[in-house]
């Protein structure tokens, strides 16, 4: 007797207006397995999962859960059918506590007190069971993204989901957080739960999944057993061409010091000190990678360098000091000094989502004489320039009149990169360059960063992806709690050592217990937003 698949989708189609996001998709996932789904940005992965979770309604197709036809009209039906989902963009209420978020929609009875009390007990058990430590009474807005994700997983577990969908769960996690997540997934699998994992990281697919499906332009193009495939094959299935999975770079040719930071201190809006005396240098022709758990001051470092945070200490660029407060410390002045900035959060900072691509391509550089005629903006010139940028950076679709929100994450990132890199800056600040971006685009973005370095420019790279840091950097500085914990050469270090530094542990030679590292890490991530 064969067991029925835990999930079976038959002929799912979904269109958003004229866009066919899913075309006649069928898929089977057996119970107690982890099924990976990969595909380019905009391939339709999230849409498919949202349909399974009842968030979107399919135009056509059927869903079977454990062999029985399920009529999933809304998320409530999905929850009832034992499905839990962790969305790519978390669905949490920012100014609610962890506990409140967990019980939302799954309260026991009308009154909150008993619900909360019960949830607290359950949460303690769950947390202990799976090693998912959270602070039940912390506000979501005060905890790091890693912690937020734990909350999302706990939400699903609290609802006793047998089927767990995770949409790009590791995009925001540090390697050790990701490892921990995978340990939990493994554990869940061994308990017989079924998991669907969407990710852009082939390493993760290879490491944890049993089977993997590849999506392309709304269609399911292949489903294979993980053990019978290779990353290169998957990459090719996904993008339709061979992909370079390693960064190819020559040794750095170091020039003069471009950026020199001394004793830099920055407070956030709440008055909490986020940078507690930072010293660092970046030379021409060099990529300095800043590793660290999100929320340890990297964002503030980028912000003050980019001109939108105030601080004390000294920063010089090409030997000339930068203003750290006042009128001349704004983004415009920074750009005038040859600093370009690809911000960590492209949707909140780097782009205006309702603006067209060409309007965004001038964003921050709208005072550029080439972009204006008299007091007016020279829109024709900007559009023409944007067309060129989109072509050179392979932005798809190459339509300057399309609003930014209508591009996929990878293509949004390319628009920002094109804008900043083509300024030919002396110093490029770049935060989380490939977050949520598919491997085809990652390859391209990495090449662009290295190309800029090879032109003798200085690059300050902030990323929570250790792999990316190691691959791109010529030198790595690790940040923890507003301090630089140490600098390493990529050739002389490994993820393990960096991981310890990121947890604030400098004596990396002596062995440390997992608990100690975790406790430190939890502390480290607190400031992240």
């Amino acid at each position, binding site marked *: 007797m064969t067991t029925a698949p835990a999930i079976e989708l038959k002929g799912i189609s979904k269109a958003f207006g004229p866009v066919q996001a899913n075309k006649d998709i069928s898929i089977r996932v057996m119970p107690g397995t982890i099924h990976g789904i990969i595909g380019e940005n905009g391939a339709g992965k999230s849409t498919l999962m949202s349909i399974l979770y009842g968030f979107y309604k399919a135009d056509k197709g059927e869903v079977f859960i454990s062999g029985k036809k399920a009529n999933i009209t809304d998320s409530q039906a999905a929850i009832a059918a034992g499905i839990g989902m962790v969305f790519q963009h978390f669905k949490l209420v920012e100014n609610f506590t962890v506990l409140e978020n967990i019980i939302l929609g799954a309260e026991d009875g009308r009154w909150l007190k008993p619900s909360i009390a019960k949830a607290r007990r359950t949460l303690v058990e769950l947390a202990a069971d799976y090693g998912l430590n959270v602070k039940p009474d912390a506000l979501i807005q005060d905890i790091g993204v890693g912690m937020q994700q734990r909350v999302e997983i706990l939400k699903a577990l609290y609802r006793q989901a047998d089927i767990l969908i995770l949409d790009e769960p590791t995009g925001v996690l540090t390697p050790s957080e990701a490892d921990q997540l995978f340990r939990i997934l493994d554990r869940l699998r061994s308990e017989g739960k079924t998991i669907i994992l969407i990710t852009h990281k082939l390493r993760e697919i290879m490491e944890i999944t049993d089977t993997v499906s590849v999506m392309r332009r709304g269609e399911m193009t292949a489903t294979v057993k993980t053990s019978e495939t290779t990353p290169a094959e998957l990459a090719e299935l996904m993008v339709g061409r061979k992909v370079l999975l390693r960064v190819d770079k020559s040794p750095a040719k170091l020039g003069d010091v471009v950026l020199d930071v001394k004793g830099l201190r920055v407070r956030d809006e709440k008055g909490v000190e986020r940078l507690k005396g930072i010293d660092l240098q970046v030379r021409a022709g060099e990529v300095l990678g800043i590793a660290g758990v999100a929320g340890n001051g990297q964002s503030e470092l980028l912000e003050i360098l980019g001109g*939108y945070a105030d601080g004390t200490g000294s920063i010089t660029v090409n030997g000339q000091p930068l203003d750290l407060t006042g009128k001349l410390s704004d*983004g415009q002045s920074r750009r005038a000094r040859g600093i370009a900035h690809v*911000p960590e959060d492209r949707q*909140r900072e*780097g782009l205006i989502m309702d603006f067209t691509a060409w309007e965004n391509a001038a964003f921050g550089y709208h*005072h550029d004489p080439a972009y204006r005629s008299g007091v007016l903006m020279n829109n024709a010139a900007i559009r023409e320039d944007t067309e060129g940028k989109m072509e050179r950076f392979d932005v798809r679709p190459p339509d300057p009149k399309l609003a930014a929100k209508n591009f996929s994450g990878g293509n949004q990132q390319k628009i920002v990169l094109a804008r900043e890199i083509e300024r030919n800056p002396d110093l490029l600040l770049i935060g989380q360059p490939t977050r949520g971006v598919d491997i085809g685009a990652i390859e391209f973005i990495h090449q662009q960063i290295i190309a800029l370095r090879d032109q003798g420019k200085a690059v300050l790279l902030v990323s929570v992806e250790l792999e990316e840091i190691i691959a791109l950097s010529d030198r790595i500085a690790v940040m923890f709690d507003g301090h630089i914990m140490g600098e390493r050469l990529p050739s002389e270090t490994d993820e393990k050592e960096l991981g310890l530094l990121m947890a604030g542990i400098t004596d990396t030679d002596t062995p440390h217990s997992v608990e100690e590292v975790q406790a430190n890490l939890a502390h480290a991530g607190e400031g992240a937003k």
Partner: protein
Amino acid sequence: MEVMPKWAEVILVPLISLLLAAILSALVILAIGEDPIAAVKMMVTGALGSTYGWGYTLYYATNFMFTGLAVSVAFHARMFNIGGEGQAALGGLGVALACLYIPWPHWSLALVGAAVAGGLFGAAWAAIPAWLQARRGSHIVITTIMFNFIAASLLNYVLVNLLRPKGSQDPASARFVDTVNLPTLHDMLAPIGINFSKSGPANVSLLIAIAACVFVWFLIWRTRLGYEIRSFGNSESAARYAGIRPFKIIMVSMMISGALAGMMAINNVMGEAERLVMNSVEGAGFIGIAVALMGRSHPFGVFIAAILFGFLYQGGAELALWTSIPRELIVVIQALVILFTGALDNMVRMPLERIFLSLRNRKEG
């Protein structure tokens, strides 16, 4: 990738919405025991059927263009300026002072001077709430509401105690001298052989209002300042990243907004009343909100919406003149127009989109 062709979005949707509002209005007229067809006929002929009617329709529309543009500009910076009423009142004061105390040699110079004075007064009145928002975080909605009331008191004081000519019992300023009287459409069109009614108050300010529409269009979509205003309005965090200073944008956008509202006074105070009376704004500041919202904060939309409201005002006045329909009927019709074209537009758009989509699929399939 839009579902509907642009013409459907821009023309068909508003037209059907307007039709729905008209049908409902007709039902209301029926319900109070009047003949809707006759009423509509009277409104249309009264407002649009003669140059006389147009003279009033365009006069009202001029007011609404100024206040509608004022609300729109602030809206692009995500400031909800409810203070058009007070700013226009202060603008009236500025215009009155300019007309009363400066011996202008010719109306054209006076017009420029009065527009500047009205604009400055309006801008100043908007600047205080703007500054409080930018520096103290005081919510612009509350402060502008409060400033409307304060403006009313201030104007009351000025008119009753300062500007009222001795012995006059009317709380209004003296009449402006004849040299500052603005040419009406009649005066302007007569030389080119068009016989426009003498009695409509529409005047040369209409041209200024239209110029203001064009100006705002350029400002918002063609200048760097407009670009910065829209950036700030769309995403404050992105604006900060780009080095666009919130303080500057809040102040500048609100002051432009206030100036536009203040400039309305060249129409009602200088062009029509030719003196400053109490409550000269008569709610045009509030109508401006409806006009801006209906016009989607786009100058062309504001222009059209202002004419529509001008039509309703004048058509309503005609109804009140020749029938016993209470004047509040017009308020109800306005409400329905705002509701259907502004808030319930998706009710029309959604089915239309479906129709267009299936048409398209059929063509492709």
